């Protein structure tokens, strides 16, 4: 049951820094929305139902705005943004056809009106409304991996595309209070790297980079008077809230620190009186190694706290795993592949050449990794990543496969078996059997197990290990057995080719919503 929280009096006043307090710290708390201008509500997803909801920032109660009906419905609300007058909420809605459309709902609740629905732009993210509440600043993410900054008319649904970017979509964008400018973050080009802040004219007449400094600069929000842009930055070594003065779409002077030490920090929006609502991600993800019949032990890594999806090499001497990079930890593009030499403990990152990676598996000769994911050119599926230098070769491209790519595994002779129509796949070490997970069963070598929702498979001797709903299972001739992997994160895991030890991810993260009050001191007091 949803346990909404009362405001905690964990106010932290550190010197002259603005005070902060938590406003939502409950199971399922999410940071997918934004505050209303008066700060009374934050739009969000109701954790219990997946409906669009408003969080009352005083009482901590969540009130549903939509009622999607059947519990069996796979529809749900995702990103949302309240209008400037607080009367409506724009929401990305995962629809019955399996992609996201843009809807508008009254803040009092009721029927959602579909504004934009186009399979070619199958992901939408409303981020802000124009001051006159007539248009909604929306991010489109298209099938061809182009992201677009667009304005959608709140009544007619008419679309004006302002700026196309590649797969590197902005983490956040917002319209200035005078409606003339859009601030967004991006890292230019089609390869990952630190982001900077840009300001784009709403009429398309100009664009300028207003924050250009080493490290990450992202999640821009306008001050209520439109004279400053607040953003998250790790330039001081840890993530903090910074602001830069802007005039006529261009930066004036140097950025100033508002509050440091913000950890995994995601600004959600600024209210009319200058309170910043933001998300914090707490918790961690690590890699655990568990000897056959033994207990798991967390692997000490170079970048603790953000690691997952381990894979043993075929010779058992190395471990590949995925690790998030950058000071922020939201979104999918900051994942790199790490190669760890298990004897020396030395780790190295492969150059980040793919847009996303969901899992990796070593080739029989240990020279390549088979990575499921997507590249920067709109291609999703399977890619071969050379362990030596990170060079990428496209293996299998499947239109519409999504960022996670598709299941795949190596045959002993080096060929790749792909699973376009299955949820998980694993080739037995001798290559004689391929296990495939379908919607409600797993089939391998003439055997079948009635188990639904399997998302990862690996062979261990003659039996299979599977991941289902965050739980590890053993599938053998004795049937399906639940495994007690302490703190298992539910992601991809790997079985040591000789010893049978298992490497898997442990831990997890969750979100909180906080507010930082009166963020913007008068500009003339800034010296």
């Amino acid at each position, binding site marked *: 049951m949803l346990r909404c929280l009362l405001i905690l009096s964990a106010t932290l006043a550190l010197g002259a820094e603005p005070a902060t307090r938590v406003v939502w710290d409950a199971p399922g708390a999410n940071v997918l929305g934004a505050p209303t201008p008066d700060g009374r509500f934050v739009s969000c997803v109701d954790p219990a139902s997946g409906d669009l909801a408003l969080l009352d920032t005083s009482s901590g109660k969540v009130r549903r705005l939509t009622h999607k009906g059947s519990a069996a419905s796979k529809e749900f609300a995702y990103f949302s943004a309240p209008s400037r007058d607080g009367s409506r909420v724009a929401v990305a809605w995962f629809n019955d056809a399996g992609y996201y459309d843009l809807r508008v709902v009254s803040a009092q609740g009721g029927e959602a009106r579909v504004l934009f*629905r*186009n399979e*070619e*732009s199958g992901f939408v993210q409303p981020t802000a409304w124009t001051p006159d509440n007539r248009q909604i600043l929306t991010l489109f993410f*298209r*099938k*061809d*991996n*182009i992201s*677009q900054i667009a304005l959608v008319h709140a009544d007619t649904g008419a*679309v*004006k*595309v*302002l*700026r*196309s970017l*590649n797969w590197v979509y902005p983490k956040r964008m917002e319209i200035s209070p005078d409606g003339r400018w859009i601030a967004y973050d991006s890292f230019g080009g*089609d390869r990952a790297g630190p982001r900077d802040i840009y300001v*784009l*004219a709403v*009429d*398309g*007449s*100009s*664009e*300028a980079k207003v924050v250009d400094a080493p490290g990450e600069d992202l999640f821009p929000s306008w001050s209520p008077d439109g004279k400053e842009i607040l953003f998250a930055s790790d330039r001081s070594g840890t993530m903090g809230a910074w602001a830069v003065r802007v005039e006529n779409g261009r930066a004036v002077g140097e950025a100033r620190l508002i509050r440091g030490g913000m950890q995994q920090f995601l600004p959600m929006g600024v209210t009319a009186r200058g309170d910043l609502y933001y998300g914090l991600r707490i918790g961690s993800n690590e890699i655990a190694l568990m000897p056959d019949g033994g207990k798991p032990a967390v692997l000490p890594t170079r970048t603790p706290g953000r690691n997952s999806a381990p894979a043993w090499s075929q010779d058992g001497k190395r471990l590949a795993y995925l690790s998030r990079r950058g000071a922020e930890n939201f979104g999918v593009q900051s994942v790199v592949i790490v190669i760890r030499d298990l004897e020396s403990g030395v780790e190295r990152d492969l150059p980040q050449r793919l847009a996303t990676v969901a899992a990796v598996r070593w080739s029989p000769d240990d020279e390549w990794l088979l990575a499921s994911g997507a590249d920067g*050119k*709109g*291609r999703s599926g399977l890619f071969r990543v050379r362990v030596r230098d990170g060079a990428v*070769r*496209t293996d299998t*491209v*499947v*239109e519409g496969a999504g960022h996670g790519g598709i299941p795949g595994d190596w045959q002993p002779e080096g060929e790749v078996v792909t699973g376009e129509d299955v949820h998980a796949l694993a080739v037995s070490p001798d290559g004689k059997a391929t296990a495939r997970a379908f919607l409600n069963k797993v089939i391998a070598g003439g055997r079948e197990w009635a188990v639904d929702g399997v998302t990862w498979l690996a062979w261990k001797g003659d039996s299979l290990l599977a991941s289902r709903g965050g739980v590890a299972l053993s599938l053998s001739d004795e049937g399906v057995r639940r495994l007690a992997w302490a703190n298992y994160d539910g992601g991809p895991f790997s079985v040591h080719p000789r010893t049978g030890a298992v490497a898997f991810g442990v831990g997890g993260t969750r979100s909180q919503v906080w507010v930082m009050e009166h963020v913007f001191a008068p500009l003339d007091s800034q010296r």
Partner: protein
Amino acid sequence: MCLRLWILSASCAALALGETLPVPLGLDAYVPAPSSNPITREKVELGRALFLFKGLSRDGSLSCGGCHLPERAFSDGKPGAVGVRGQVSARRTPPLINRAWGRSFFWDGRAATLEDQVLQPILNPKEMDLTLPEIRERVRGEESLRRRMVEVFGREAENEDIARALATYVRTILSGGSPYDRFVAGDREALTPLQQQGLKLFRGKANCVACHVGPQFTDERFHNTGTGWREGAFVDAGRAAVTSDPADRGAFKTPGLREVARAAPYMHDGSLKTLEEVVDFYNDGGRENPERDVEMRELKLTAEEKRALVAFLESLSGKVSDGWPAAR
């Protein structure tokens, strides 16, 4: 002049706000331009006049527009560019569609900006064959151009300003509003079933998006497909002439594909006459050579799949515009 006859897109899904350049469906409202050379209506008109000014060639026979013909996607339909005195270049005249979004220019990318690029054909002895002082004097010597240069830039014609005006005009040559753009915008009938099959192949089996990606269908990078390799040798160094990197031998910039059906012949040297020949070339994995791009491989397309790909490529033809329609 043919440019005048190229009636353009007053009715296209244009979005004009004040003096902001109108753009057709499928293109961004934001048309990139250097802050030192913003797009203005007056500069575009001046740039167009310079583009059509034959006095910018040695013998007065050739303007920029003499090779960049609107009806051929601002290319010329010839396998090699033909300059003054009938001289033929080894590379073809590139189309000038949506170059505002370009990141480098010429087949080998030797110019970083349009401002860097536009005077080079005028200076090239095999093309228009003038010197820098001659360019300036020819413009100053044409009274209407001289006057307009002063009006726009506030001083007598300088080569720097001539380049700015030409670059600004080229920046406004836009194509959009194609059946593909309508399809992506949500009109599911805009592409025929065969074209939709071609789109699927384009994004999938045929692997075209390995290079032809984004709104302009180009990654703006350089790839060796084998067109520069003949009889065991590179006949054109391609990008390597700029970088001196042997790995760049025979690599040429990926051209955008908008209006591609109007832009024959194809490849940097115009060696393929039709889109069917182009699809066959890629289906065979290009031409094997020491630096062939890793993305090149045999595609094993069926005859129907090849037809579908060509049909899709034809759907990329839309409405071409240059500047503000109301100005003409």
